C-alpha cells in the first residue's frame, strides 16, 4: 500500500499542456529517490480547472498544484513527497489563505459545485476498474439485477425527474418505458458520445475520467428494456476517450460486468464501440443510428421514434453520456435524493463547459437552478481584464445568447427556452464588450452551413441564404429590408427543416436579433460595428497628439501601410491597411484607435 497518491490529470486539456511529460518525470524522479513503494502516481481524468493545467493533486494532504512542468517535478518529489514540505510557488493560489492552506472544496471554483456526473473525474484512475468499484461502481448494476424488476427501475428514474442531458431534455424514465413496452426479438441500447457543439467537452471528460459509469448505466438500461446489445457512438476526434472506453470494456468483460450471465442472474449484455467520422449531424439520433448501421449519416423523419423502430429497425434507446453517468447514482441513492436537487421541472445537476472570455475556463457541475451570474462571476471567476459582460451563449449552434438582463434567471431547461436559448449539451461561451453579436451569429451560421447534411432543402439552402444576409450585414451592404427578410427566413428554416440541426440553426440569429437588435441596425444604417470587430466597417487611425513618432507601428505593419518620419506623427494609408490590428497592439502610447 502507498502512503501518498499523486494524481495527475490525463484529460485532453492537461495532456495538451504537457501532463504526460510530468507523469514521466514523476515516475523517474520517484524511482531515483527510492519512493516507488511509497508513492503511487495515478493518471486521472479531468479536474475541471483546465485553464490552469497541467493539474497535480497530492494526497493525503490534498495539495493542488497548477501549471506544473516537468522541470518542477524534482523539487516536488524531494521537498513534498520525501520531506513533506509543499512547494508553495506552485500551489493553486485560491487555496492559499492567511490562515494557511484551505481545502479545494472551499475555493470559489469548487464550493458551489455538486458533482454527480463528474464525481469520479480527476479522482480515480479511469484505466483501473478496481478503483471504480472502490467508489461504489457496479453496485447499482448488482442491485438492479438481483433486487429490482424492470418496472422498478423505470419508476425510480421517472420519480427522480432525470431528463436527457444531450439538450432536448426528454424524461429518461419515459423514454425507457416506451422501449420496454415494445415487443421485439432484439432491442438496442445506444450511447450518444458524438459531442459536436463547438465549446462543449463535458461528455469527453466523463468518458476520459470515468468510462465505467457509462457502461454500468447502459447495462442497467439493457436489463430494463430487455436488450442484450449496446453501442457507444463516439467521435474519432476523441482518441483518449476511445482508448479508455475500449480498456474499460475489456476490463468489464474480465470482471464479468459485461458478457454472459452477469452476476449469475442469466442476464447477458455486451457493448461495442462505433467511431464517428466527424459529422455534426450524426449527433442527431436518427442520423447516428444510420451511421452505426453503416449507412450515410443522414436523419430521417420521426415518427417512428427510435423506441419503436430504431437501430436495425428494432426498438432502441439513445441517451447522452452525461445522462448515463447519472443513472447508477440514482439507482443507489434513490429518486428522492436526486429530485431534492434542482428546480421544479429540472432535477439534479448539469455540467457546463465554460469557455470564451472567462477566467476559469473549464468544467463545472452545478445544481439546476443556479443563476448565470453565479456560474460566470462566482465559479468562473469573472471576465478577464476587467471587461464588461455582454452575453453568454448556451447550447452551441443550436442555442442562443443570454444577455445581461437575464443573468439572474435560474438556469433550467424551461427557463432557457423561455429566454430564447436552450440547455443544449452544456457549452457556455462568455462574451464581453469586444465581441460583435452579428459576427457571433455569423460564426455559428458558418458552422451549420458546413455541417448541414443536405438532405432537406430548408436547411441546405435556407442556412446558406441566411449566412449570405449576415455577411452582407457585416460588410455594411445590407438594407433594413434585408433584416426583415432574414428574420422571416429564420422562421421558415425553423419550421420546415427535417431534423433538429436545421430546426435550431436560426436560434443564434434570432436570439441575437432579440437582445442586440441595435447592433444589427448600427451595421446596416450607420455602417458601423460598435464592437469594432467587422473588418469592412472599421478603419485604423493615428491620433496626432498622442503619436510620438517612435516608428514602432511602421516597422511592424505587415502591409507597409504606415508612413511618417522619426519623431513626427505617423499616418495610416487606408487603401493599403489590411486591418490586422498589429499597430494597435505594438503602440506604447495608445495613439492608435479604430473607428
Amino acid at each position, binding site marked *: 500500500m502507498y502512503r501518498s*497518491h499523486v494524481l495527475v490529470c490525463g484529460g485532453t486539456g492537461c495532456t495538451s499542456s504537457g501532463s504526460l511529460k510530468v507523469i514521466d518525470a514523476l515516475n523517474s524522479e520517484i524511482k531515483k529517490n527510492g519512493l516507488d513503494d511509497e508513492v503511487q502516481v495515478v493518471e486521472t481524468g479531468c479536474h475541471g480547472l483546465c485553464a490552469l493545467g497541467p493539474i497535480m493533486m497530492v494526497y493525503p494532504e490534498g495539495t493542488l498544484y497548477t501549471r506544473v512542468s516537468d522541470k518542477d517535478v524534482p523539487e516536488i518529489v524531494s521537498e513534498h513527497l520525501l520531506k513533506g514540505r509543499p512547494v508553495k510557488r506552485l500551489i493553486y493560489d485560491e487555496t492559499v489563505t492567511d490562515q494557511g492552506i484551505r481545502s479545494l472544496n472551499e475555493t470559489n471554483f469548487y464550493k458551489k459545485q455538486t458533482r454527480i456526473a463528474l464525481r469520479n473525474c480527476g479522482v480515480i484512475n479511469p484505466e483501473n476498474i478496481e478503483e471504480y468499484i472502490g467508489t461504489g461502481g457496479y453496485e447499482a448494476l448488482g442491485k438492479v439485477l438481483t433486487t429490482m424488476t424492470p418496472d422498478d427501475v423505470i419508476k425510480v428514474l421517472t420519480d427522480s425527474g432525470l431528463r436527457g442531458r444531450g439538450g432536448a431534455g426528454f424524461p429518461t424514465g419515459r423514454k425507457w418505458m416506451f422501449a420496454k413496452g415494445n415487443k421485439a426479438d432484439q432491442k438496442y441500447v445506444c450511447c450518444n458520445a458524438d459531442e459536436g457543439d463547438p465549446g462543449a467537452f463535458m461528455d469527453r471528460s466523463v468518458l476520459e475520467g470515468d468510462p465505467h459509469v457509462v457502461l454500468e448505466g447502459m447495462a442497467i438500461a439493457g436489463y430494463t428494456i430487455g436488450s442484450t446489445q449496446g453501442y457507444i457512438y463516439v467521435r474519432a476526434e476523441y482518441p483518449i476517450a476511445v482508448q479508455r472506453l475500449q480498456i474499460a470494456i475489456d476490463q468489464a468483460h474480465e470482471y464479468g460486468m459485461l458478457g454472459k450471465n452477469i452476476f449469475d442472474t442469466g442476464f447477458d449484455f455486451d457493448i461495442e464501440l462505433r467511431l464517428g467520422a466527424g459529422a455534426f449531424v450524426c449527433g442527431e439520433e436518427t442520423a447516428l443510428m444510420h451511421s452505426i448501421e453503416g449507412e450515410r449519416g443522414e436523419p430521417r423523419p420521426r415518427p417512428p421514434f427510435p423506441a419503436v423502430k430504431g437501430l436495425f429497425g428494432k426498438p432502441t434507446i439513445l441517451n447522452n453520456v452525461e445522462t448515463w453517468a447519472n443513472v447508477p447514482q440514482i439507482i443507489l441513492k434513490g429518486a428522492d435524493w436526486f429530485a431534492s436537487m434542482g428546480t421544479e421541472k429540472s432535477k439534479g445537476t448539469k455540467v457546463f463547459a465554460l469557455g470564451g472570455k472567462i477566467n476559469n475556463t473549464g468544467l463545472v457541475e452545478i445544481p439546476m437552478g443556479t443563476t448565470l451570474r453565479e456560474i460566470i462571476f462566482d465559479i468562473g471567476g469573472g471576465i478577464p481584464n476587467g471587461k464588461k459582460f455582454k452575453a453568454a451563449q448556451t447550447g452551441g449552434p443550436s442555442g442562443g445568447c443570454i444577455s445581461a438582463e437575464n443573468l439572474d434567471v435560474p438556469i433550467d431547461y424551461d427557463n432557457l427556452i423561455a429566454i430564447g436559448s436552450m440547455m443544449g449539451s452544456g457549452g457556455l461561451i462568455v462574451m464581453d464588450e469586444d465581441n460583435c453579436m452579428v459576427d457571433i451569429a455569423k460564426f455559428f451560421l458558418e458552422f451549420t452551413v458546413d455541417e448541414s447534411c443536405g438532405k432537406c432543402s430548408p436547411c441546405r439552402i435556407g442556412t446558406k441564404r441566411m449566412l449570405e444576409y449576415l455577411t452582407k450585414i457585416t460588410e455594411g451592404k445590407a438594407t433594413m429590408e434585408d433584416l426583415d427578410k432574414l428574420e422571416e427566413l429564420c422562421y421558415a428554416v425553423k419550421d420546415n427543416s427535417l431534423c433538429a440541426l436545421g430546426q435550431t440553426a436560426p436560434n443564434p440569429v434570432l436570439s441575437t436579433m432579440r437582445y442586440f437588435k441595435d447592433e444589427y441596425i448600427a451595421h446596416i444604417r450607420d455602417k458601423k460595428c460598435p464592437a469594432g470587430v467587422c473588418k469592412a466597417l472599421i478603419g485604423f487611425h493615428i491620433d496626432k497628439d498622442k503619436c510620438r513618432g517612435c516608428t514602432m507601428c511602421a516597422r511592424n505593419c505587415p502591409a507597409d501601410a504606415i508612413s511618417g518620419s522619426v519623431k513626427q506623427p505617423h499616418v495610416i494609408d487606408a487603401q493599403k491597411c489590411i486591418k490586422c490590428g498589429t499597430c494597435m497592439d505594438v503602440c506604447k502610447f495608445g495613439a492608435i484607435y479604430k473607428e
Partner: protein
Amino acid sequence: MKSLEELKAIREKMQGQLGLREEENAKTRVLVGMATCGIAAGARPVLNELADKVQSDHVKDVMVSQTGCIGLCQYEPIVEIYEPGKEKVTYVHMDKEKADRVVKEHLEGGKPIVEFMLHTVRANEAKNK
C-alpha cells in the same frame, strides 16, 4: 465471472486505499518528522507502516503525512498526533513495531501509549542518569 460477494470484497479492499484521497479534511492528523535528521534516524519505515496500517485496517478520518524538523533531533523518529479537542501527543524514538501499536491502540483503540511519549522517555532518561 465475479459474484456480488467478490465485487464487495474488491470494493472494501479499494476503499481503504481510495480513502487516502478523501482525507484532506481528516479529523485526526498523524505527522511524522521527515527532515534530514528524522530520515537518518529511520522515519521512513515508520511513516510507511503508519500509512499502510491506517489503510489496511480502514481507520476512518485519519491522515498520515510528513512534517519538518521539530527541533528534538536526538529523539527522532518523532510522530505527532493531533486530535481535535485533545492535547497533541508526541511519540519519540519510534520504529515499525511501535508504529503498529500506535495504530492499534491509539488510533483505533483510543488509548494513547504513555510509554512512547516524550515526557515518559525523558523522565526515564533522567532516572537512569
